[in-house]
């Protein structure tokens, strides 16, 4: 189905199943442990041996020599593969750095060898016996230092061509110089780890030259292709299975060393091999969200209208890497005629930088939404009013291009009312509750909307059961459930008459899970396939497609009512179709919006910050399953609190690695950090996104949270911190004196 004009009324609008807060259909499997994650296919692969990866102990340089003798002789060892044994390997489209190093080392913990043994313990013990002599080279590990000489670059555009070096509109410098009120501040955000619960994990099994991998993965088709490229085998020879994924946050958009080394180890050992990356290794072996250094300049007139706006950012990456899209939201978020957006990319020899939930916007909004608060304070305008004054229904740089839906102002108005924003004291440092300084903060949430083609296969049997198959992944988001809801709604069935099978490369290629595109694009693919099935059913039953109604498991036309399953009496009906998108997203901007509200307490003595309550109001198209969507948003809010208050991969600038590389050292929020959270979804349908009229919420929920926390901390203390995370040591010396 080609989607190139806004959707009219369609079966989804019945909202009998779609739009209902529905429990996960995979919930019982998860809570009973029956859902199999990549490492757990014991019955399917009963004879798997265990692989353990040896990572580089240095960040930059070369392998002088490797001595495998002791490791090979260790008990239980079946095979050891290094770059030498592996021979020539390719590099996947989505990998910047090679997944198996040798002789050159590109970063700390880059894989150097895999040891395969009968048991996990044997593989781990033998891996520690691999002796490697390194020749160290000098590397660059300091972002601030690197940015001093880093070039301005636009990086690669979405079309794979170099993007413009910078974005300019009007005369920023002139307008800024002339602005009566202005701000020029710098902000930094640290490197972050996705810290998903399930580590990267794989089982690889060869059958002749055919390879099957069970791989924790968000994007089955991308990764199947990249694995084939890396191993130098045809894509058709690779099957990738990933039906359950224990979180990804971008870390599993691509293949990593686990699956490549499992495949190489399995080949060498002549046996299936399973590998899970241990956490202390994973945090330096796999990509992370890069640190940023940002500068924001805003000029306004006396009334608070933005007249000049500049956002510059600097990030770092290994050779061949990209600048993070930190300024993306700044193109579109607020009005203002004269604009400058610029990015720099420093060369760093730290582990590869890559996507983590809302890449770019997450860091960009952490800075921008503090800047907006600071500007509002200079103007003595309420921060919400300041944002509303500068809200826009059109692209500030292309005024002819409108937003399909933009309810940012509504989000703020409703949120302010619900949260009790009027209780906030505009003068910081004034509210107290015993030992605690109390503050409220707000910030805009904004995330672009992306459409991606997505297919599904649908089977109808004589019992009236509909089975949906797609290589879509469910990374804890609820894909199974919204796919089932979509098929049920379209076919006029209750939810329990739909079976959903996901995450297998033998199924049609879907949108996959990333960039919050999965929900809308994926379900639109299911919808398209179901609509095709409806035609076939009507045809088989001798009914007129146009007036056949699919209701309560029946197909009705004129005065006839036939059980849906009857259409498959002569054999199952199997069809495959999907959604393809025209250029509606070029004609207008499609994006998701929201407003975050946070109340914090800061201990006046110790400077410790604890969140007291949070609210997010989101306008993100039709909400397909409010329960699953709420889970996404509160999870994202939690992640935002982590980013604001504690998460930081601490860089050792001498040795070039992330030092706190486990979940004891890299702190993410625990239950005790997360108090009352509330989410409100505005009643919105966006007919321009797909027949589902939906968008995504998984990343929107994170965008802006960090700044809302930062603004609340400022409101509590009167001390502005522009360097995340906001840990107590950054404001302790400026808190009120103690008796």
């Amino acid at each position, binding site marked *: 189905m080609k989607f190139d004009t806004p959707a009219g009324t369609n079966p989804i609008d019945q909202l009998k199943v779609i739009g209902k807060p529905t429990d996960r259909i995979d919930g019982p499997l998860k809570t009973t442990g029956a859902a199999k994650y990549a490492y757990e296919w014991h019955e399917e692969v009963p004879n798997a041996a265990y692989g353990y990866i040896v990572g580089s102990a240095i960040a930059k340089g070369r392998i002088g020599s490797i001595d495998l003798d002791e490791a090979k002789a260790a008990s239980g060892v079946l095979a050891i593969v290094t770059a030498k044994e592996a021979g020539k390997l390719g590099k996947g489209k989505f990998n910047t750095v090679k997944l198996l190093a040798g002789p050159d080392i590109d970063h700390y913990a880059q894989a150097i060898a895999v040891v395969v043994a009968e048991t996990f313990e044997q593989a781990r013990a033998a891996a520690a016996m691999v002796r490697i002599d390194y020749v160290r080279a000098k590397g660059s590990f300091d972002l601030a230092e690197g940015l001093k000489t880093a070039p301005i670059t636009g990086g690669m555009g979405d079309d794979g061509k170099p993007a413009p070096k910078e974005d300019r509109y009007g005369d920023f410098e002139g307008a800024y110089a002339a602005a009566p009120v202005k701000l020029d501040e710098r902000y930094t955000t640290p490197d972050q780890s996705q810290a998903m619960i399930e580590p990267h994990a794989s089982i690889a099994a060869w059958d002749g030259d055919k390879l099957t991998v069970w791989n924790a993965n968000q994007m089955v088709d991308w990764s199947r292709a990249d694995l084939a490229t890396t191993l130098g085998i045809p894509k058709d020879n690779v099957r990738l299975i990933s039906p359950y994924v224990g979180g990804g946050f971008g870390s599993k958009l691509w293949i990593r060393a686990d699956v490549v080394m499992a495949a190489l180890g399995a080949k060498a050992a002549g046996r299936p091999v399973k590998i899970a990356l241990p956490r202390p290794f994973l945090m330096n072996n796999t990509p992370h969200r890069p640190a940023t250094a940002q500068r924001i300049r805003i000029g306004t007139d006396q009334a608070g209208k933005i007249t000049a706006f500049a956002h510059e950012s600097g990030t770092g990456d290994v050779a061949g890497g990209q600048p993070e899209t930190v300024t993306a939201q700044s193109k579109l978020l607020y009005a203002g005629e004269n604009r400058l957006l610029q990015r720099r990319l420093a060369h760093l020899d730290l582990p590869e930088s890559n996507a983590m939930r809302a890449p770019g916007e997450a860091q960009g909004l952490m800075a921008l939404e503090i800047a907006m608060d600071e500007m509002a304070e200079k103007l003595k305008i309420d921060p919400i009013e300041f944002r509303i004054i500068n809200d826009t229904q059109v692209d500030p740089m292309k005024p002819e291009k409108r937003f399909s839906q933009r309810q940012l102002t509504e989000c703020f108005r409703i949120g302010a009312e619900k949260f009790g924003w009027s209780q906030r004291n505009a003068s910081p440092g004034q509210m107290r509750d015993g*030992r605690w300084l109390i503050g409220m903060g707000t910030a805009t949430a904004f995330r672009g909307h992306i459409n991606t083609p997505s297919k599904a296969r649908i089977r109808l049997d004589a019992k009236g059961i509909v089975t949906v198959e797609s290589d879509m992944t469910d990374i804890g988001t609820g894909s199974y459930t919204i796919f089932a809801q979509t098929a049920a709604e379209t076919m006029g069935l209750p939810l329990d008459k739909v079976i959903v099978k996901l995450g297998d490369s033998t199924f049609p290629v879907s949108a996959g899970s990333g960039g919050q595109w999965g929900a809308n694009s994926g379900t639109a693919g299911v919808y398209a396939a179901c609509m095709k099935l409806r035609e076939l059913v009507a045809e088989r039953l001798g009914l007129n497609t146009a007036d056949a109604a699919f209701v309560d498991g029946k197909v009705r036309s004129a005065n006839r009512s036939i059980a849906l399953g009857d259409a498959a009496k002569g054999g199952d009906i199997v069809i495959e179709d999907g959604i393809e998108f025209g250029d509606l997203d070029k004609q207008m901007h499609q994006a998701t919006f929201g407003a975050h509200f946070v109340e914090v307490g800061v201990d006046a003595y110790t400077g*410790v910050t604890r969140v007291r309550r949070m609210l997010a109001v989101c306008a993100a198209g039709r909400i397909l399953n409010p329960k699953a969507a709420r889970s996404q948003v509160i999870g994202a809010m939690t992640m935002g609190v982590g980013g604001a208050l*504690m998460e930081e991969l601490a860089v050792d600038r001498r040795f070039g690695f992330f*030092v706190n590389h486990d979940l004891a050292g890299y702190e993410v929020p625990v239950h005790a950090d997360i108090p009352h959270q509330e989410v409100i979804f505005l009643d919105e349908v966006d007919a321009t996104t797909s027949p589902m009229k939906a968008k995504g919420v998984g990343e929107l929920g994170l965008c802006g949270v960090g700044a809302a926390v930062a603004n609340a901390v400022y409101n509590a203390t009167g001390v502005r911190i522009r360097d995340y995370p906001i840990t107590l040591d950054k404001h302790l010396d400026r808190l009120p004196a103690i*008796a």
Partner: protein
Amino acid sequence: MKPFSYERATTPAEAAAAVQRPGAKFIAGGTNLLDLMKLEIETPQHLVDVGGLNLDRIEPTPEGGLRIGALVTNTDLASDKRVRKDYGVLCRAIVAGASGQLRNKATTAGNLLQRTRCPYFYDTNQPCNKRKPGSGCAAIGGVNRQLGVIGTSDACIATYPGDMAVAMRVLDAAVETVNAAGATRAIPIANFHRLPGSTPHIDTTLQHGELITGVTLPRPLGGTHVYLKVRDRASYAFALVSIAAVIQRDGTGHVAIGGVAPKPWRNEAADAALPQGAKAAASRLFAGARPTPENAFKVPLAERALAAVLAEVKAA
């Protein structure tokens, strides 16, 4: 993890004798030792499990205090009625540590002997004098926000990371041991953990093979018991700074600080200065502190945290 042999001892003397073998170590709850073995930071060849030694009772002492068996779990100790009533600071310190699951396994002796959480100690690619004597200290000049500000040396700036021992320090507990020859002794907690000097690989004054059999607490001190643990997240994190204090109505009392030194940090001059307030006490506790630029905040933080404790006691 290197292969190792394992045995389960049935009497304290037998355990102490069994651990005389080269490369042998005791194992109790295993929550610290096993993690270190997986990373090959500890590489014992033989483990002597002390779980069956019947050292899991809490009993009154003739002096009016309590004797805590070495194998009493953190959960059992923190929930003991006598501890909750008379030694509140100990109960609060324990529940401020680790997680419920860990505390169910963690033992009194194992907790005292938990090793540092210096991140470089945990990464066998990095130099670390505590892990590998003479290899150097990667934390000095590196990432050391969490590490020590006082009592440290040029060889090591790590902290003793635990909570329970900080409370035991303020209570003047004593660690009871037995060796292979059957000789027993009681080590005042003040002398139990040692400063690193040039030998940071030795954490305590225990001799090799010396088995901890219990910890004794003197008669209850009365007063108000407070444990304040300051950390970046609300739970399940080691202390940046922690304060264990027992304060009397007249403002006198005892205070020990955790998270700042290789041992629970306390001195008599600071205790004596408590009635004059946090500043007076903190200046005595931290005289001669040698923080790094990254962790210099711990000194004012400790003072402010102590002020919070004193204010809380006053208000109570």
